[in-house]
């Protein structure tokens, strides 16, 4: 059984605590360290590790403090170099090279974002739960079998983004950046359709844009498409 706690999920900051009951992990550290401490009841040291998808501050802000607090942080070499950090708490991981972290087996995979070496994570625990975590990616190259939990970015909808550009609320250059760095509702649907969801128990929609999304609509449409319980993080 996987338990997901959303500490933050937006372009302002991302941080999630997941646990299978044995090994609690943090996914991202993109908010102030003090906030993470507070939300975890000051039990940071209980965390077996922290996986960082890429170097952007809304995912990595608290990494130095996490390391100081004794939490091992897992990220790609590209992310380490971009952050300019060093220390024995850093564990460099590579796409398609799985590793063990407590009761979790974790397979990192490449994501598509304007970052140095961004990663997503496929994670299996000893209870047989299989969780997919993918954020800040405008598509996923891969399909996955036997997923039970899906935590996936659903940043914007193309019709809302187009309307915001037409209304002058979003600059065309920013729109182009979003198109090639974040997951749209339409492409999340394509991804979910391409995967076997028969064992999926929960779908979490992450990192919704403040201005280019509609949480209620996204939840409804993904629920209608998949027939699964859908939660919007944040």
């Amino acid at each position, binding site marked *: 059984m996987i338990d997901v706690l959303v500490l933050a999920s937006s372009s302002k900051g991302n941080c999630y605590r997941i646990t299978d009951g044995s*090994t609690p992990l943090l996914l991202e550290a993109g908010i102030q360290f003090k906030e993470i401490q507070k939300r975890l009841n000051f039990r*940071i*040291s*209980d965390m*077996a*590790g922290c996986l960082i998808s890429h170097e952007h501050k809304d995912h990595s802000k608290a990494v130095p403090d996490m390391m*100081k*607090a*004794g*939490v*091992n942080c*897992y990220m790609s070499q590209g992310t380490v170099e971009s952050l300019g950090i060093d*220390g*024995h*708490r850093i*564990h460099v*991981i590579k796409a*398609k*090279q*799985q*590793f*063990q*972290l*407590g009761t979790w*087996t974790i*397979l990192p*995979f490449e994501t598509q974002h304007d970052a140095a070496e961004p990663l997503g994570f*496929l994670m*299996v625990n000893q209870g047989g739960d*299989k969780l997919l975590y993918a954020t800040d990616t*405008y*598509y*996923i*190259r*891969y*399909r*996955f*079998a*036997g997923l039970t939990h899906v935590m996936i970015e659903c940043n914007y909808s*193309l*019709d809302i983004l*187009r*309307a915001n*550009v*037409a*209304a*002058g*609320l979003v600059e*065309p250059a920013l*729109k*182009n950046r979003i*198109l*090639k760095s974040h997951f749209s509702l339409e*492409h999340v649907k*394509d*991804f979910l359709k*391409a*995967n076997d969801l028969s064992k999926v128990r929960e779908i979490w929609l992450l990192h919704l844009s403040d201005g280019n999304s509609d949480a209620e609509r996204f939840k409804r449409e993904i629920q209608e498409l998949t027939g699964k319980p859908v939660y919007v993080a944040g």
Partner: protein
Amino acid sequence: MNNAQEAIQDNNAVATMPVDLVPGFTSKQSLELALKAANILAKSSLVPKEYQGNVPNCVIALNMAARMNADPLMVMQNLYIVHGRPGWSSQFLISTFNTSGKFSALRYEWVGEEGKDSWGCRACALEKATGEKLVGATVTIDLAKKEGWYTKNGSKWQTMPQQMLMYRAASWFIRAYAPELAMGMHTAEELQDAITLDASEYEVKVEQEIQQHANTEVIDIEESAPQQESQPEQAAPADPGF
């Protein structure tokens, strides 16, 4: 000067304004009145969010309300921003027409067969001054299809065709016979239909890339694969500085 004194002075200033003065842009006093009223409305949590904290938007709404002889809050609630352009709700436009005093209430005459492309309606009303029956242009499903309104993404023409036929027939009628009521603006439904948000060249290029590469490979965790051991330091004490 304290707040109470300022309020008294403001009230006195308003009290000295001519009784027939309306908020708007017609004179310095008119604009001053509009600004005072707009400041109050902008602080209200009951006005739609486009007006909350936005004094200029409130001044525009007040000016429109004055010109239409309508309540400012009603104007605010019925003025929609569609793709950056203001448009009236059809209901409001019809209601403004019906209460203008110059015409009888709008009615609709139906043509064709329900469910067929020929199905449609036209709006009509009597001009009170002359007793003349005024008839608007006929709007049909066929026309909605030809104009591309029917097939647009999220189009209400497919889900509520009767309502859309009536709204469109009414807005065409009002623009033909009483354009001053709409103040040169379209209805929100018309704007939804008319503004096409085409995919940019860049959008098409990104889409092609996604279609080519997304969801193409299968990967999975190998149970027997040699694994990089990375044991967690459970309950490790905090070690600031290391």
